[in-house]
């Protein structure tokens, strides 16, 4: 006779845990850690943000690099004359980043990616772009 209330409680707790996983609340109870919060909507948002940030960083780097090598490319990205090609670089990069985020943040498979792996990717894109912003490095390609 005591089993029914217990079963009911277990069903309610299981449903609540599923709801919390679904909205991305990753807590100690029933969670399996940041890298293993597979499929939760919250994890998808985090990974999508990381991917989008990597795209922004790499875009700013690549656009700056190509602009230094090609005058035509440089003048193409001048959105505001007073700011020069930097205006186009930043606008295009963030526009692309926002697009990537909107495409990915609701994809469950994205949430299964490793947050650690995408952190490494983020830092690698920052290192590569940093090279592209250094004039002595770019001058090697002139």
């Amino acid at each position: 006779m005591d089993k029914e209330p217990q079963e009911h409680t277990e069903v309610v707790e299981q449903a609540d845990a599923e709801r919390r996983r679904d909205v991305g609340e990753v807590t100690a109870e029933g969670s399996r850690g940041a890298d293993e919060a597979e499929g939760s909507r919250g994890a998808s948002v985090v990974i999508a943000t990381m991917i989008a940030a990597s795209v922004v960083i790499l875009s700013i780097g690549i656009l700056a690099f190509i602009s230094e090598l090609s005058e035509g490319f440089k003048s193409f990205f001048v959105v505001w004359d007073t700011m020069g090609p930097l205006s186009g670089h930043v606008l295009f990069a963030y526009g692309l980043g926002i697009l990537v985020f909107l495409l990915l943040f609701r994809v469950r498979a994205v949430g299964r990616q490793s947050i650690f792996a995408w952190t490494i990717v983020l830092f690698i894109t920052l290192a590569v772009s940093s090279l592209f912003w250094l004039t002595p490095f770019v001058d090697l390609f002139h």
Partner: protein
Amino acid sequence: MRQSLFLHGLLGGLFVAGLCIAIWQSASPGKRSLTALRVNAIALTLLVTIKDVLGDVVYTAYRENVPDSARSLILASSKPWAHEILMEFKEHAAHVLPAMLLVVVAIVFVYDIRDRENLTARKVAVSILAVSLVLTLVILFMGAMATSVAGVK
């Protein structure tokens, strides 16, 4: 324009202070509420975005195509590298900071980084904040060096 430049520098200093606090908040959250960290992360994202916009305003004066603009004076001086290397790096590097801070905002809102099971997320947040701090200090240094050669009028 000098006021914009002053505000730009002031916000840069505030940003550094905020990053230090955020690193402490995320590295050792203890049992404290995450609200302070979350508010700090959002505030830092807004702060760096405003700082970047102000920097872009100052940049337009910096690169004016006149003989007495800061860029022209630096290129004509004995230290043209202050523009060719320092400013070229600084003007691009500063614009990636909002994207990096948005990643931290996402992490601290999705994950309860106080839990041991979310240790990876906590470490990722701390590392991104730390890298942002290093990058900001490099940018501040470059800006100070360039301004010491020729400041924006």
